[in-house]
């Protein structure tokens, strides 16, 4: 990751110069400044900063209105409020408006630099997870099928999942929780589920309950292994899996979540298996 690009929003030229000095002396790049709502919108849309420092009292607007305007342009831009006012009420309001940190003026250099580093480290970790997670889940499924049924599997397509789709028959959902939260979902026809469960049990499942129990454990192992691969690469992720829930019914549709997930379809000896997983960009943990 390159230099962190920052826009300073403040109506005092003294404050802007002061904050700019601190930032530049500590290796950050100041790419713009603004003092009104219109200027904020313009400079943010134009310069696309990683982060914005935000004064609370501004002529004709306030820091929270500007923060909302920034997040309308790009919700991933981080905002740090730097204001002389600070009380519980306003800090809570700032949190509600997705502000990442709140710092009181006069600015303490260490406090500001620490806040920026904390925020960008979270960003980097999320980017890292986005790059790595789906390969880990695919490996988990491939390895799981291979080791538990001694057969091979071929992935045939892979695409971002952004529209609802019909379940093929049986869906297993596993919630994932750690530094970022997400989920893994496995979907297949009842016929495939039955054959796969037969291979896992090395005999015909006695009834649907036994079939479901086998699938639950199968999905549990896959998600657990995938999360272990990711946790080994970066301890800070701390991913853990919740117990599986298994669903089936008539005309079941799976809704697209409001964060990006990936789907892959795999051909197996037992039929097609759909694998879907994704993680949400976390809400900032406040200090």
């Amino acid at each position, binding site marked *: 990751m390159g230099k962190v690009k920052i826009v300073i929003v403040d109506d005092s030229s003294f404050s802007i110069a002061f904050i700019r000095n601190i930032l530049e002396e500590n290796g950050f790049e100041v790419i713009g400044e603004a003092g009104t709502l219109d200027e904020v919108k313009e400079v943010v849309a134009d310069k696309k900063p990683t982060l914005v420092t935000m004064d609370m009292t501004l002529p004709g607007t306030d820091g929270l209105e500007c923060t909302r305007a920034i997040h309308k342009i790009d919700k991933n831009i981080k905002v740090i409020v730097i204001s002389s006012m600070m009380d519980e009420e306003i800090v809570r309001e700032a949190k509600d408006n997705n502000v990442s940190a709140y710092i009181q003026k006069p600015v303490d250099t260490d406090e500001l630099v620490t806040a920026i580093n904390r925020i960008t480290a979270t960003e980097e970790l999320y980017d890292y997870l986005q790059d790595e997670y789906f390969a880990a889940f695919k490996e988990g499924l491939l390895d799981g099928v291979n080791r538990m049924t001694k057969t091979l599997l071929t992935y045939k397509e892979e695409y971002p999942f952004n529209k609802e789709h019909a379940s093929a028959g049986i*869906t297993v959902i596993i*919630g994932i929780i750690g530094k970022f*939260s997400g989920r893994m979902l496995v979907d297949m026809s009842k016929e495939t589920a039955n054959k796969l469960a037969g291979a896992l049990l090395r005999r015909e499942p006695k009834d649907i*309950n036994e079939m479901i129990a086998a699938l*639950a454990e199968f999905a549990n192992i896959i998600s657990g292994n995938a999360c272990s691969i990711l946790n080994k690469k970066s301890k800070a992720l701390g991913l853990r*899996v*919740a117990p599986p829930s298994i669903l089936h019914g008539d005309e079941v549709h799976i809704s697209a979540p409001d964060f990006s997930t990936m789907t892959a379809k795999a051909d197996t000896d037992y039929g097609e298996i759909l694998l879907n997983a994704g993680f949400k960009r976390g809400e900032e943990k406040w200090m």
Partner: protein
Amino acid sequence: MDVKYVNPFIESFAIVMPQLGFASTQKTGIAVKGREIVNTGVVIVLGIVGEIKGNIVYAIDYDSAKKIASIMMMGMPVTELDEMAQSALSELTNMLTANAATAFSNIGIIIDISTPTLLYGDNISIKMSSEKVLSVKLQADDIPLEVNISFENNH
């Protein structure tokens, strides 16, 4: 499973729903079910890890789901369960479960929640990991909603 684990969900319902424009909330029933839940309509599943491990499943019939989404969207009419309505309902369960997690932390139990997964369909059968599921029936402005709590055995 201890019934005290139900209170955080009732508390959270009473706190969250009024913030979303509902005038009244009440608990209308509580039942212990086996590990299988059946619902026609919307089902939203969230995972829980921490000092307690398990799942929360929200079950809502189609009509109620549309009514809830409509109130959450400032009274905008919701005639079908479109993407916007689904997103509102997912966010609702996220808020309800996150607030319940805060209530758990107030009694010294630290838990974290996963993202919600929403499905809809007819006769959806959901098999949970625990032997028993606590099912709490709640109402906001007379619209019913069911919260099913499945915590693993050690609790």
